[in-house]
């Protein structure tokens, strides 16, 4: 167990630059969009007009998806950033999995770990746990920044969860791709095929 936790912590620490950059990206866009919307459309009339313009704008709907509520700040933010952040969350899961399961193997470090007292499946689970911990950091960054954008707590937590839940799915895709491809570069290239 000590070995598995050491491996998980090592993988988490290894991904810190990626985790921090994604967390910053998530936090910044959540804060910026909620603030910009609140300041750009201060009254209900402004927001109605904006919702109508989006309704007529096929390009905007194509890019960000069909809006469900463009009159509240929360509704706007979840429409405006929810979709694109889910894409980034997918990327986070993919990169994390390929990095953990393929790059380590290519570099010969996996061998060194497996020569220790950790089994193959525990090493695999430890790597997944590290990606899960990274996803938790992203969730926290999102919730905090949504709250900072003065959105309700329940909705913020739920939106953040919806976005971050994409991470494990694509970590799974990445894990499969990393085992199918003979090297890291091909594994990263295989994934978009799964989108």
């Amino acid at each position, binding site marked *: 167990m*000590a*070995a598995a936790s*050491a*491996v998980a912590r090592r993988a988490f620490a*290894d991904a810190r630059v990626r985790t921090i950059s994604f967390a910053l990206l998530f936090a910044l866009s959540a804060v910026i969009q909620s603030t910009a919307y609140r300041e750009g459309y201060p009254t209900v009339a402004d927001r109605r007009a904006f919702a109508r313009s989006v309704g007529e704008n096929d390009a905007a709907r194509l890019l960000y998806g069909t809006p469900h509520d463009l009159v509240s700040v929360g509704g706007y933010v979840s429409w405006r950033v929810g979709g694109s952040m889910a894409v980034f969350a997918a990327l986070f899961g993919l990169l994390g999995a390929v990095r953990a399961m393929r790059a380590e193997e290519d570099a010969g470090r996996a*061998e*060194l770990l497996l020569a*220790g*007292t950790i089994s*193959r499946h525990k090493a695999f689970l430890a790597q997944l746990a590290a990606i899960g911990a990274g996803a938790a950091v992203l969730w926290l960054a999102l919730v905090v920044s949504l709250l900072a954008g003065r959105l309700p707590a329940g909705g913020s937590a739920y939106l953040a969860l919806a976005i971050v839940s994409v991470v494990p799915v694509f970590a799974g895709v990445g894990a499969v791709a990393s085992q199918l491809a003979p090297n890291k570069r091909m594994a990263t290239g295989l994934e978009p095929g799964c989108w």
Partner: protein
Amino acid sequence: MTATPIRTERLSKRYDETLALDGLDLEVQPGEVYGYLGPNGAGKTTTIRLLLGLLRPTAGRAELFGVDAWRDPVTAHRRMAYVAAEPSLWPGLTAAETLEFLARVRGGVDTGYRELLVQRFQLETPKKLRALSHGNRQKVQLIAAFANRADLLVLDEPTGGLDPLMEMAFRETVREAKERGQTVFLSSHILSEVEAVCDRVGILRQGQLVDQGKLADLRHLSAQTVEVTFDGHVPALPSLPGVEVAEAGASALRFQVTGSIRPLLAALADQPVVTLTSREPSLEEIFLHHYESGDGRGGR
């Protein structure tokens, strides 16, 4: 009961067309320092990867302390520490952090002894691995493995990149391990290293163990060298069975003697011999003997 540290039975590994290891039967006894010799591509690393359970054998089995290496690697590794030929470590970690991490993954470390090894190998522990040379990264692996105090050390060409001074430190460390009763499996193509530290050697050639034994036993298989200098010109000597003139000078001869040296000594007894030296073949000569006597494929 002490189980045999390493035992393989008809262990074979095939990669597509290539038979990398062909029915290896190997047994390494507790407390023994076993030298595993062979040129690149002979199957040394394949053997080690099979011993570690990183590869599934095509046929046969490998056991560490009686535990099947492929089926139950975690138990098999409990009493083993490993040094890879390539020091692939985490570039962002310092040497000290790497030692700490490897200690956790392997379970168990003698910190006092590790400190001593860090001093002996003059490792700069605050440096990040990416700033260390190949030899210095190799030191990190060696220190981590020896400080583990494992009953069995599996070392895959561990001294690549080490300078002669560090090579001496390595030999000293292996001898200490032996004194403590640890078993060492040392794969190498550096004959002097194996000759200096190993009790027994196995010579691997194209996936097959072509010879195995104590150094003293192996030496008998090859000719010994006798050098004689004479007072004045080289006298005429009768041709003797098993004695071959390797080199002839104006007043000196060098013989290769297979089998007993007595016929040669008898023939020389009446001659004006000034000096006579005889030496056992070095491991190098034994090694070359094996590689030259084969069909030459992939030999040298």
